[in-house]
């Protein structure tokens, strides 16, 4: 019997559906899945008890989970999680935690798993320009990319065991600087609309924001746009030296499709490209390509979306 331990993924203090995806992935790797929920209030863990395919839920309760501290979280989770194959999400924070947990147990970590087949794991290498398939012996820690494994449903029922735990906090939070806009970050969004240098000026990104507001999307940018305009921050950059994303829908506007950009978004489920150059490489990767200037195409797209969403 292979034990798997899923570390629940929380956003805004709640267990999110990525956790259901992690349970699906864990059940491809083993036959007994324990979900560990890092929390300050154990009622948060009730939701994990409803996920199908879970044999045990441990609410790891500690004040250290109020703010992220890699060392304290790893210590507190390690002390309550059984040994076995540990599965986390591949968010920036969870990858950090995965690496800490693996090192703490002197076992290996494999990050950004995108497929599991016959016990073999696939991960993107060279920013997704190639795929590496590995086999792993014994206990290990895997981080799993979101949006790939079908989420386990919520028809289960399993008791929650609350265990108090603690860890040694090594960083002190001084300040939390809220993001300037309420808009989603590209790393959290299911839909992303990105602009390149073809947008002409940074002010023209307002046309992308208009569509983003309609779709509940995040606004991203190519490296060329980030490097050219100070108004476009690096946090918006999608690509090899920016963020790697795999949303359901990626709309590339005025982006030619440099190899660095493709590396960061090619695994998106659907890709729409708007570019005036019919030979732009981005079209080779687009499910739907529109050969037109963004000045002409975006108003049509915007009003069509309004009609459909009305």
């Amino acid at each position: 019997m292979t034990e798997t331990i899923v570390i629940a993924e929380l956003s805004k203090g709640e267990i999110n559906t990525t956790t259901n995806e992690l349970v699906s992935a864990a059940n491809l790797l083993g036959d007994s899945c324990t979900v560990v929920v890092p929390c300050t209030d154990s009622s948060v863990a009730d939701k994990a008890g409803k996920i199908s395919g879970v044999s045990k839920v441990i609410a790891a309760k500690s004040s250290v989970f109020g703010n992220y501290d890699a060392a304290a979280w790893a210590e507190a989770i390690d002390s309550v999680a059984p040994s076995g194959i540990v599965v986390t999400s591949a968010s920036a924070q969870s990858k950090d935690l995965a690496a800490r947990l693996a090192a703490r147990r002197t076992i290996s970590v494999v990050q950004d798993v995108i497929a599991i087949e016959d016990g073999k794991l696939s991960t993107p290498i060279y920013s997704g320009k190639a795929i590496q398939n590995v086999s792993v012996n014994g206990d290990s820690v895997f981080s799993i990319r979101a949006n790939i494994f079908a989420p386990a449903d919520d028809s289960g029922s399993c008791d929650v065991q609350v265990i108090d735990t603690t860890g040694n906090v090594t960083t002190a939070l001084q300040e939390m600087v809220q993001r300037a806009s309420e808009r989603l970050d590209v790393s959290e969004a299911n839909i992303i609309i990105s602009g390149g240098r073809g947008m002409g000026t940074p002010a023209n990104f307002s046309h992308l924001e208009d569509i983003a507001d309609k779709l509940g999307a995040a606004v991203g940018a190519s490296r060329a746009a980030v490097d050219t305009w100070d108004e476009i921050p690096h946090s918006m950059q999608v690509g090899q030296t920016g963020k790697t994303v795999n949303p359901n829908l990626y709309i590339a506007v005025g982006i030619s499709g440099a190899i660095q950009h493709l590396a960061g978004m090619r695994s998106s489920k659907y890709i729409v490209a708007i570019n005036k150059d019919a030979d732009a490489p981005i079209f080779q990767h687009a499910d739907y390509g529109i050969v037109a200037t963004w000045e002409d195409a975006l108003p049509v797209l915007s009003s069509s979306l309004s009609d459909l969403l009305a």
Partner: protein
Amino acid sequence: MVNIAVLVKQVPDTNSKIQISGDRVDLSSVKMDISPYDEFAVENALQHKESSGGTVSAITVGGAAADKVLKGVKALGVDNIIRLDYDGFMDSNGLQSIIAQEIIAGGYDIVYCGKSAADTGAGSTGPGIAERLGWASVSNATEVKFADALTVSYPTEGGDAIVSLNLPAVVSCDKGSIKVRKSNVKGIMMAKKAQVDVRAVSPPAASVTVVSQVMPPAKPAGKKFEGASSAQTVAQLLRDEANII
């Protein structure tokens, strides 16, 4: 005086095309360069030295071909260049264990590294060695301020967190607003003559085995439309065919 280590890795230039030969990536015709995030780690290490005094040692793992990345950072002003001599595959456990041993042996106070290497993209090394050493760590740092304690910013779900941490610590660096310095002719000449300190290492046996490396599955050809009015068709397809909106 701060004893600073910075970890650097040589990877394929991020503009290069990756090709497969047999069931492995073939890098024989690819130009190699320092991993992009490591440049920010080196810059932070050098600024830390300039602010507090001390020495900066750059450490890489690889065969003799990896000396190039060390010479490159030597030209930027790094004091010592060290190569842990190992050319084969290591899993995260093996890699972190030999680096952590070197950090202990060198008596370092702080380790800077890139948030991830451009080849694996994993980002495990920084937090992994911090855990082995029992040190504090912050990953994905976009800004570092140097004093007796470090003040480090990094992005989180709720916004940018600004935390302070005491040394010893590991900081893995993201791009942020820091501008990296370029080498000059004098630096390059000096680096040419510099001696790489080569250390023998023996990592523990790997528990991860690479089975194969393959190209990502090709995407079926998409639909391409001419003219702005087709945006309406595409919006409809996103609803009817893709079921996204």
